[in-house]
């Protein structure tokens, strides 16, 4: 859908507002999130300017449209080729919104943005998204429901809820989720330094429009690997039929661990048409073990969320223990500095791995700490 452009009138801004400039498409979502939260307008240039598929893709435009619906006063301007985006943020309003997302990427792509913005809106978020719930590349809705929202709750968003009305696999989609979340006035500082010990592993194996025998095969294989570590493994079997099953066949597995200190580490995978159920189980379990091996109090795919909330506290010190930083997180840290001027103190914490009782994977973790920028939800009205 390359022919679609958004033309909106752009006001000349006050001299004091300066555009932050970015290049490339890799940090598209985080730039939009930080721009909306900090109120700083941005220009993104050279978006896939050397590729055959020039400019913004369908799902990125779809995200821009969703943001436009959620906010008031957002001004978006794309050039003719879609390689240059001028984005000046408005106020996050929220409310009841229904959005048909692009089928190119799973809903996780959009929901990750919504999770960041929901707390800082004027009204309660009550958003229905339609599209692909399980797909490649981005976390599926099960992960979001069980893991991301548990992080949200630990960060103070107690009312965050994700209801999966329909599941829809790529490429046909047809899934529907309802995301609702209340707003916050201020964010509380966190101190997550103890990763604890994993006390249970849970998971969801889901499939639609496929043989009901698929899920048990996945579950059996996954349990076979995980039971070696801990007996408390339970994987839910979600087999959907009829209207709830979406437009395409597919199956997926989501696994997450829960520790004695409520640390959740997760991993999910959606099978492609060639993948055997056993292979799906094996890759996912191994990836989960990899994630456990990496250590830290936060899962690698949620590092950005925790760091964002740490940055947006009042002038308080927060610290968190993380495993190795993902490229996305590193970019996010840089952008946090650009938008909010916040610099994290990063300390390497080494453990002697050889000692029994200390056999905790990598042996070193990072401790990131920062002093919050004194953020306050200005969108919320007084009365």
């Amino acid at each position, binding site marked *: 859908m390359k022919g679609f452009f958004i033309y909106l009138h752009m006001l000349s801004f006050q001299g*004091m*507002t300066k555009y932050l400039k970015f290049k*490339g498409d*890799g*940090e*598209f*979502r*985080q730039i939009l999130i930080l721009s909306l939260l900090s*109120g700083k307008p941005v220009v993104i240039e050279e978006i896939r300017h050397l590729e055959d598929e020039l400019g913004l893709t369908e799902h990125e435009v779809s995200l821009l449209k969703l943001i436009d619906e959620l906010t*008031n*006063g957002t001004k978006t301007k794309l050039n003719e080729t879609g390689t240059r985006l001028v984005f000046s943020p*408005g*106020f996050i309003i929220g409310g009841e919104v229904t959005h048909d997302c692009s089928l190119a990427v799973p809903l996780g792509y959009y929901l990750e943005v919504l999770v960041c913005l929901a707390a800082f809106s*004027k009204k309660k978020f009550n958003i229905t998204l339609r599209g692909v719930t399980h797909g490649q*590349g*981005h*976390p599926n809705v099960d992960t979001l429901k069980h893991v991301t929202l548990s992080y949200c709750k630990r960060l103070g968003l107690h009312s965050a809820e994700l209801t999966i009305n329909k599941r829809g696999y790529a490429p046909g989609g047809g899934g529907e989720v309802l995301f609702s979340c209340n707003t916050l006035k201020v964010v509380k*500082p966190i101190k997550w*330094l*103890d*990763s604890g010990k*994993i006390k249970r592993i849970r998971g969801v194996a889901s499939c639609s429009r496929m043989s009901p025998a698929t899920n048990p095969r996945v579950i059996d294989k996954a349990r076979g*690997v995980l039971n070696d*570590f*801990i007996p408390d493994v339970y994987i839910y079997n979600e087999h959907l039929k009829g209207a709830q099953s979406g437009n395409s066949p597919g199956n997926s597995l989501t696994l997450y661990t829960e520790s*004695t200190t409520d640390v959740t580490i997760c991993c999910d995978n959606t099978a492609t048409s060639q993948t055997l159920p056993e292979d799906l189980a094996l890759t996912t379990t*191994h990836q989960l073990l*990899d*994630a*456990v091996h*990496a250590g830290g109090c936060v899962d*690698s*795919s949620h590092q950005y969320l925790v760091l964002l909330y740490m940055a947006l506290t*009042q*002038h*308080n*010190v927060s610290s968190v223990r993380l495993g190795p*930083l993902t*490229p*996305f997180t590193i*970019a996010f840290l840089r952008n946090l500095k650009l938008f909010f*001027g916040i610099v*994290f*103190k*990063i300390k*390497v*914490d080494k*453990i002697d*791995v050889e000692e029994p009782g*200390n*056999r*905790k*994977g990598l042996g*070193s*973790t990072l401790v990131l700490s920062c*002093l919050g920028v004194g*953020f*306050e939800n200005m969108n919320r009205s*007084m*009365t």
Partner: protein
Amino acid sequence: MDIDPQRSHKKRKAGAKFNKKKRRKLDEEETPVDTDAKKRNPKAFSFQAVNKTARIVHRALDKQTKKHHVPEVDRTPVEPPPTLVAVVGPPKCGKTTLIRSLVKHYTKQNVNQVKGPLTVVTGKNRRCTFFECPNDISSMIDVAKVADLVLLMVDANFGFEMEIFEFLNIAQAHGLPRIMGVLTHLDMLKVGKAMNRTKRTLKHRFWTEVHNGAKLFYLSSMSFDLYNKRDILNLARFISVMKFKVLTWRATHPYVVVDRVEDLTDPELLDKNKKCDRTVGLYGWVRGANLKSDTSVHVCGVGDHVISDVSLLTDPCPPPGKEKSSRRRTLNEKERLLYGPMAGVGGLIYDKDAIYIQTTDRQKKNEGDDLISELAQQTETLDEKLGTTEISIFSGSTGRIKNDDFSDGERRKMIFDNEDEEEGDEDDDSGEDNDEEDLEDEMNDEEYDGSDVDQSGEDEEEEPDDDMVVGAARWKKNIANKAKESFIQRQLNAKNLHSIIYGEETDSSGQFTGLVAETRTTVDCTRHVWAGESGWEDPGRRDSIRDCFVTGEWGGDEDEGFGEFEDLEAESEDGEENDDVEEETPQTTEETTPEEEKSKYEKKKEKLKKLFDTDYDENGDESKYFADLQEEVDSQTRTNKEFFADEAHRERYEGYRAGQYVRVTIADMPCELIETFDPHYPLVVGGVANLEHQMGLLQTRTKRHRWYPKILKNQDPIVVSLGWRRFQTRPVYSIQDHNMRQRMLKYTPEHMHCHATFYGPLAPPNTTFIATQGATDKKTSSFRIVATGVVLGLDKTIDVVKKLKLTGTPYKIFKNTAFLKGMFSSILEVSKFEGAMIKTVSGIRGQVKRALSAPPGAFRASFEDKIQISDIVFLRCWVSVDIPKFYTPVINLLTVDKTWSGMRTVAELRRERGETIPVKQDSLYKEIERQQKVFKPLVVSKSLQKNLPFKTKPKVENKRKKQLYVTKRAVVSEPGERRLTTLMQQLLTAQKESDKKKMEKKNKEKEKYLAEQAKITAKRGEKAKERRKIFYQKNAKNDQAGED
């Protein structure tokens, strides 16, 4: 007195009473008596009145809970900035004299002129900055925003002036700092009853404004142009024990009250263009929140700017407390420092790359001593400075020593290098198990250093190649896995992690090419799978994560994770503990002396006691919830204070803390700030928090000030002081209807709140503001504050509506349907209003149905009843009002006379041009002329009349052709009667004539009397006017003379 033995008591040995007692005694012995009173008499110990007891308990709990406040994190800095004491008051009431007296009291120095802030060391740990507030409204607003304590000066001889109340109102809107009243000119009053009465009335009036029991000081007499020493001593004592409130705005925003301004513009640029934008250095203590170096700020009265650099300077006026040189409580002579660069007082002035020594205003005999002593005090800092700067001393005023060889960046680099070395040392100590790793580390170090110093890139490119060769030789097996591990290891190992993430020059360091490449091509995906191929079949690898699970080993400590947690939390404490352990262990192996054992015992006891205390608190205390909350906040406070305390790059993470003396450099200042600079006016740099740089609509609740004589007109420009900013804007007033509709108002209500929506820079909801008519300091007798208010919400669009009535007329009427025209002009317009309610004047309701094609804008409508062709139909609707996007910051500090005039109101413009208010002829009210309706006579046809019964037949009488007798007859009177009538007529005429004459005479006399009276009153009035004139001339204060 002895008791008579004869009359002493005799115990009965027999008789009825004896028997009775005996019996009772026996009874008691037989039945066992319950010794426990509660068991013996349970009723006495039960609740007598359940409800009453419940009420008592309830009340007690209520009282207990009422004492609690929501615990908040304490953000007061360890070393606070000087207290800002602002001296405010109308002209000629002794502000300058008071500051001079106070400075004299503290420092024993005479200050000739009070210009700008004067900082004085007032105690071991306390400093004060005194500032004299000028009398224009802009300065008063700025001072109210930053002052910690306000000394409100009142000329007792004159009484309260408008400025006092204006200032109190301004202060109230901006958080209300501490306010202390000071009465002066008391020696002008007559001693005795009159004086006491004046004091009392003034005190009570002050109390009603501030609060009951607010302190009001009396400064009675003067000596040598200063106030009485004893009075000043008392005042100083009060200032020194004053405690200050934490004001929300100030706690969340950094600000600097500038006490020194330097123009740092390149002289070459200045030569080329005198009006070029200046680079300005603004000096002062950071106050409020932490100041970060790349934030945007608002300079009050100048505008919004972005800080280009903040640099930390040596405190020019340090409190002596930290030096602990003497144990005396009072300050010695050397410690009594005075710092006021704008007034030209104070000793050494440090700059980023220069040192100034001021030698004026010093007594000659002490000059050398003072300089030497101050230099001696500052040896440490001087040593540091000497490394990087050159010092040359100029006699006279000031001389600037520039040092171009040492730029800012390089000096920072030097510190960085040291740190690197230290860290390298640490690494050497810790990890000696693997030589290769060490080697690698060192290589990393070298490389990192290289990249930092910005050497040529060639070496850096070579070294990774070597590394690769070594790597290839060693790690041949299981390459993918090891590569993954090493990638992660490299990341974790990096003490240079900070520079990888935040550094600019990461691409030049070859060691991290893998990481950098990956980060350069960031995929927009939060998930990251560490490697594709993993060897989880390998049991050794499985064992490496065994202990992550509850089924694994838990280690030596009860809670391993907790140990780590502590390790990070308080490194120093933990370190100490570890030391203790190390010390103890050898001792225990040797011998334990009884003393040690005793101390050990005590420790154990303490531990047990602590355990018991926590246990008791948890179970016993009813307010556990509150205690937990308090504990949480306390621990956060501790963490905030300690976490970055021993950090080398503390400013990087935290910004500059309150209490640090900094130079704020701003690159794009208008040249007028320097050219027209006047140190008498306050210069405040206020930090702008997130989103506050954005423009938008602010919805506020506003009330016209009760002392402002007029009501405010919709969209008339007003100057609003909100947050740090003062700006002119055009508010739209509205009131909220019951259905939440914002209905526009033409004028503010007289005594009621209304909403005002205006365009401007955002401020968080719940921020209060005041509005003034303008920023010009015109001589107005009226109150200058027009309104006060509070921000309710922010948005980009806010819907304020006004009522609009559209009218139309029917041109064809069916039964309940009618075709209407004249309401709209096109079909499109009609289609917008389909289904809208309409109504005739007579009250018949209806609905717009569909547009008609024939006359444009005509439509079909249906009504609840048949309407008439003469009816007027109207449609009531609401149109949203555009909120004017008008915003101008008040830049009074950039003008020569420090006054600023912005947009004027229409009324002001008309007044100036002498124009009258234009009258719309259409809007005038006219007499309504209603024509009398003339009805046609009722005609009943003759044929019908014939058939009607008599009762209903019209009974119309025809006009008579013949006259009746009564009108026709002639009257003839008798001669006697005729005479009588004539006589009566004559008499009446005579009477009338005489009455008329009498009346005329009376009127004439009255006129004469009134004229005389008018003359007398005119004379009286003139005399009274003269008397009044003399009185006012005598008593009124001549402000103009006073200001000169």
